[in-house]
């Protein structure tokens, strides 16, 4: 499990490599929070290209980040979600309730978030 970041305009782009479950989610949450506090950005965009497993612990991580970005008037985005993980997002109503918006690429996410 590996978390890396970069900042582009008002967005913190977070790339996670590995699997998101209860075990890894604690470390993922901490790392993202620390970086978000440090950076002067509004939005968080998740790069999901290298995540091949996520259970509902990942939904908890997203909902938690939603609370953080809202305090700064920011939004959440995600791109390159594989079909199986997409179903977990759908099930949880995260797209429908506009908690996080799905995009097909980083460029699309940055221009439309």
């Amino acid at each position, binding site marked *: 499990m590996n978390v890396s970041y970069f900042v582009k305009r008002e967005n913190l782009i977070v790339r996670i490599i590995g*699997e998101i*479950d*209860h*075990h890894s*989610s604690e470390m993922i*949450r901490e790392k993202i929070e620390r970086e978000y506090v440090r950076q002067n950005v509004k939005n968080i965009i998740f790069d999901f290209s290298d995540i091949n*497993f*996520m*259970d*509902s*612990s990942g*939904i*908890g*991580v997203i*909902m*938690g980040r939603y609370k953080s970005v809202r305090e700064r008037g920011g939004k959440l985005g995600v791109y390159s979600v594989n*079909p*199986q993980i997409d*179903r*977990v997002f759908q*099930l*949880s109503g995260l797209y429908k309730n506009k908690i996080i918006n799905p995009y097909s690429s980083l460029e699309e996410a940055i221009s439309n978030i």
Partner: protein
Amino acid sequence: MEYQNSMKISFMSKSQNEAFARVAVAAFVSQLDPTVEEISEIKTAVSEAVTNAVIHGYEDMEGEIFLSCTIKDNLVEITISDKGKGIEDVSRAREPLYTSKPELERSGMGFTVMEAFMDEVEVESVKGTGTTVIMRKRLTSI
């Protein structure tokens, strides 16, 4: 005659074992030549039930988790149980978004995911005694 196979696993209630449990079940089920989607659904459902045993059943204290998997032709039955604190109100627990641990950033979607990804999910729980989740899925691949 129908094809049969079965296995049982027991392991400590450590969060490290969530990945172990789902990979072990996936490896066992892979003898049925499941689709990528089926394997992914089973892994996710197992991960949810095992995580619940770790977080809610034993509340991060040490305990043992029991998992069994049987195959009968193309039917997979997975049982995951703990001897932890149990669930007072199972139907409330199964509601989407209900969680007793929002402070841990749980989403309350665990049971909903299990139900969506498996054909049947049964929950048996006795307060103070433990919880057993039985999940069944018929694979299309055979």
